[in-house]
């Protein structure tokens, strides 16, 4: 039995269904992200685990105990909110110690644990500040320390970095991962940012319109997306509408150009299918044993570490990501260019 088990959880708000048949087993110490666009049900699912929403049907078990209808203040679950939600009338130390005070712990223990938590978030000197005297990133660290101070069974993070600047977001997410691994705490992390989910998680649950699309490790989710939604939501994806020439060989054609994708293709010869290809799998020039396509350069975007090139091939568009190098010669808009990719990089997506 998993440490946290969500079984057939469903939540309906006045006729419209927010979460449909959600099933997930989370092991102790695991960090699982719920990833999806806004309104996909990820936050509602998290709030059901926190106890702020009661599932319309289904069951949630934590450490073998059925908590489906338990009040939020009985669950011993730590929660971090997007808007920090620090108590403005209390100092940092009082915020961190609040849960322990409410739990009627002895004063020495509260002080000791508060100091320990402030050390963990690397803010040992700021205990007597008020929230309004802190930056957004610092406030969110305090919120994290406050949630962890009560030694919760599960840590729930609801888009904790959405309100922060890009630079702080990257720093704080590795900080969250470090703390989570140090304490070995079971964590659910809700985000709409795929990069965040990919970088921080042991496993990712991709959600769309209240349904689970796919559950897997970041590597699986990115490289082996099971649905068209996952493929297009996580990362950038080229999608080419092609006609099957030889399904057994994986041979496809579009706009007069022929190439080979991962074989076999589960479609009849002559059928129209969508071939998918990540931009980083494409490269300029001719490589032996690989597919070659020719197109016209439409836009070149320099992003620092990578160069993103958009090309037009007949009726279709593709995007190519090249790693930046100092010796690189950037293609010019209007140039005709040949691009190559191996057959295994391209797959035919199942039609929904």
């Amino acid at each position, binding site marked *: 039995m998993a440490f946290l088990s969500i079984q057939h959880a469903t939540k309906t708000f006045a006729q419209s269904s927010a979460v449909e048949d959600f099933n997930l087993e989370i092991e102790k110490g695991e960090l699982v992200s719920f990833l999806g666009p806004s309104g996909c049900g990820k936050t509602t699912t998290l709030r059901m685990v*926190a*106890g*702020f929403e009661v599932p319309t049907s289904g069951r949630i078990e934590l450490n073998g105990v059925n908590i489906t209808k338990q*009040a*939020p*203040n*009985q*669950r*011993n*679950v*730590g*929660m971090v*909110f997007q*808007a920090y*939600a*620090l*108590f*403005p*009338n209390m100092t940092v130390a009082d915020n961190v110690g*609040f*849960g322990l005070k*409410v*739990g009627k712990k002895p004063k020495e223990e509260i002080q000791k644990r508060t100091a320990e938590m402030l050390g963990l978030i690397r803010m040992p000197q700021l205990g007597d500040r*008020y*929230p*309004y005297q802190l930056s957004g990133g610092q406030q969110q660290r305090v*919120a994290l320390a*406050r*949630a962890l101070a*009560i030694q919760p069974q599960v840590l*729930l993070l609801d888009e904790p970095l959405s309100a922060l600047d890009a630079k702080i977001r990257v720093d704080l997410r590795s900080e969250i991962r470090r703390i989570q691994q140090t304490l070995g705490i079971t964590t659910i992390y809700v985000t709409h940012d795929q990069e965040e989910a990919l970088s921080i998680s042991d496993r990712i649950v991709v959600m769309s319109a209240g349904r689970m699309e796919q559950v897997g490790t970041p590597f699986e989710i990115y490289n082996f997306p099971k649905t068209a939604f996952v493929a297009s939501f996580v990362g950038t994806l080229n999608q080419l509408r092609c006609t099957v020439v030889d399904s057994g060989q994986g041979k496809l054609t579009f706009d007069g150009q022929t190439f080979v994708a991962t074989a076999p293709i589960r479609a009849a010869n002559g059928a129209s299918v969508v071939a998918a290809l990540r931009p980083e799998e494409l490269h300029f020039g001719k490589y032996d044993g690989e597919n070659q396509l020719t197109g016209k350069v439409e836009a070149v975007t320099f992003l620092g570490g990578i160069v993103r090139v958009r090309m037009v091939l007949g009726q279709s568009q593709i995007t190519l990501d090249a790693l930046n190098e100092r010796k690189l010669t950037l293609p010019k808009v209007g140039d005709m260019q040949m691009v190559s990719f191996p057959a295994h990089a391209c797959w035919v997506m199942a039609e929904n």
Partner: protein
Amino acid sequence: MSTQAPSAPPPGERIRAVRTFTRRAFPLWSWLWFILGALYFILPLYATLDFSLRMERDTLGLKAYAVAFADPGFARTFGYSVLLAVITILVSILLVVPTAYWIRLRLPEARRIVEFITLLPFVIPAIILVFGMIRIYSSPVNLPFTDIRLLAPLTTSKFGTNVLIVAGYIVLGLPYMYRSVDTGMRTVDVRTLTEAAQSLGANWLTIMARVVLPNVRTALLSGALLTFAIVVGEVVLASYLGLPTFGPYLFLLGQHRAYEPAALTFTTFLLTWAAMGIIQLVTGGQGQVAGAH
């Protein structure tokens, strides 16, 4: 100055330069309207003060104040009004804080209805309120279509009349109290704070006492101050219910005397300002907290 021709600044720079210039230019019209507005409030006040100091011919003095304060009627009616104000404020807080909190938390769809109800005193004059109250509560109130008595007539007893006037004052103060409390709760996002406290194990009582009330303190105080000002100066309800409060006393005094009412008006004005000053002092730090969000 360098003789070198300055290179043209990029467009953004130029805009910034123009903006800085406008900001530094003297905002003539803003100041003019501000001064006119200020005079509109200050001149009558100054006239009242000046008049109140001229009870003795050809000298400025505090005689009007001495005479007014010496009248036992002043202390009696003012004290009575303050007591009514304090009771009104306490009952209002007990009524408004949980209501506003519950609407923020669980019943957001009810906000428009409640806001409408709290604004009714602006639409329905106090005279209509008091006539309605007298008409209903001067005879016993029965359960509709039965002989089961719910309430004895309120206007016939002293206690009953006091209950009526406090109830009336609560209604008159509702727009101010509800709005300031509701705004205070929105500013601190009381809903998320409640959830944060809940997840840390707090029960409703703890959340109310340690999280909600301390964070809406400033809002409560400003609502309370406005209610206080309304109750102390109120004439209509008190006159028609026949209660000896400060409002009717000042009104009667104004019909017989010239200088004392001016002195008392100015005094109550000062008291109100002192109360505001106290609120500023007490909530100096807290106000900033709310502002930081």
